[in-house]
């Protein structure tokens, strides 16, 4: 549960992703209160304003909702939104990068698909 301070990804996005993972793992359930900005600041040794920015990101994406004076809570649709977002943005982005590298290395389509299937099978076997 350590942030990667040297990563390209801004800290507040990493906080948002960490919370998304907590939702995916069901450590945070629907209608459950999420950590406050101060708690997150303490947990990760970051400025509370940075933590608030991470929380706000999830609020804007409707993964969290606000209860006035009580804090932020996991929305009913949270899981679906996170899954959808991870698929369409993160996974697609990673695949795109892999394809671009394949093009640079002049790997043929069939070879690339073969590699892809092999990796898929390997990870199924685990």
């Amino acid at each position, binding site marked *: 549960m350590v942030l990667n*301070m*040297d990563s*390209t990804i*801004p*800290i*507040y996005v990493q906080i948002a992703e960490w919370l998304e993972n907590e939702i995916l793992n069901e450590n945070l359930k629907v209608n459950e209160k999420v950590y406050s900005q*101060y708690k997150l*600041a*303490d947990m*990760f*040794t*970051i*400025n*509370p*304003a*940075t933590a608030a*920015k991470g929380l706000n990101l999830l609020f804007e994406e409707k993964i969290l909702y606000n209860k006035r004076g009580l804090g932020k809570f996991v929305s009913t649709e949270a899981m679906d939104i996170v899954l959808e977002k991870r698929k369409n943005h993160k996974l697609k982005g990673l695949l795109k990068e892999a394809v*671009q590298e394949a093009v*640079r290395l002049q790997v043929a389509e069939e070879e690339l698909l073969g590699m892809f299937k092999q990796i898929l099978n390997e990870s199924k076997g685990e």
Partner: protein
Amino acid sequence: MNVIECEGLVKKYGSLNALDHISFSIKENTITGLIGRNGAGKTTLLKILAGFWRETEGTITVFDRRPFNNLEVSMNSIFVDDMMSFTNTLNLKELLSEAQAFYPNWDAELAERLLGYFNFNPRLVHQSLSKGKRSTFNMIVGLAAKCPLTIFDEPTTGMDRAVRKDFYRALLKDYLLNPRTIIISSHHLDEMEDILEDILLIDEGKKVLQLPVDELKEYAVTLSGRTAVVMQTLQDKEVIYKRNVDIDNCSVVVRNNFLHGEVKQLGINVSPVTPSDLCVYLTKGQGGGIDDVFNKSKSV
């Protein structure tokens, strides 16, 4: 609410402008990192804020008052650096209990706990401490005073890495419990950037920029690749720093205000610039880099 308002501030030493018409403001209950090269004017600025030194021109208000010689500002602020002088007639423990009389919010329990945690012998005098220990003690005073405006000028001088890490963590934890306005100047931006909210970068007495740390992280990117290709893409970009890796390759730091996709497609590598490196690039003089000093055959 702004705790500090500064407009066209000038500090002259003879004919030199140590501060050159600097204007900025600092919000209440934020942690700001004051960053700049040696001689940029950091200490001068902080000492004026604390009311120790008098400004030459311009206006400066701290808690809506001019800080110089102002009792109210003095009472509500503390300035911590490695030159803090304490009497030798009192030992460390006595110093801490005397401090209580000067600071209305003094947290005696925190001071004592920190003194114990950092393994101080409470019967020593301040002058007998090593450089790092002295900085650590001063930091304890700075934290325990709980002043609405807390200023640390190079607080980590001489501290080893472990103590520095503890200091940043202690500062953050105490800030979470007792929010207050904190300004820290330091050369260790990479170590403390995560606990900061804003960064104020100054150079030659002028403000270069003031931004939330998150935005500073996304302020610029490095483009690296074949010089010919990289140069092609620079027309519509704001170049901050340029370096030739070898004859054919170069890396260029540019403002991050364009879409990376098309650049990447040309085979150019786009990588982030750490705030710490960015501050160095932004304050580099026009004289080129250290390499030029060694480059005798330079023919420009």
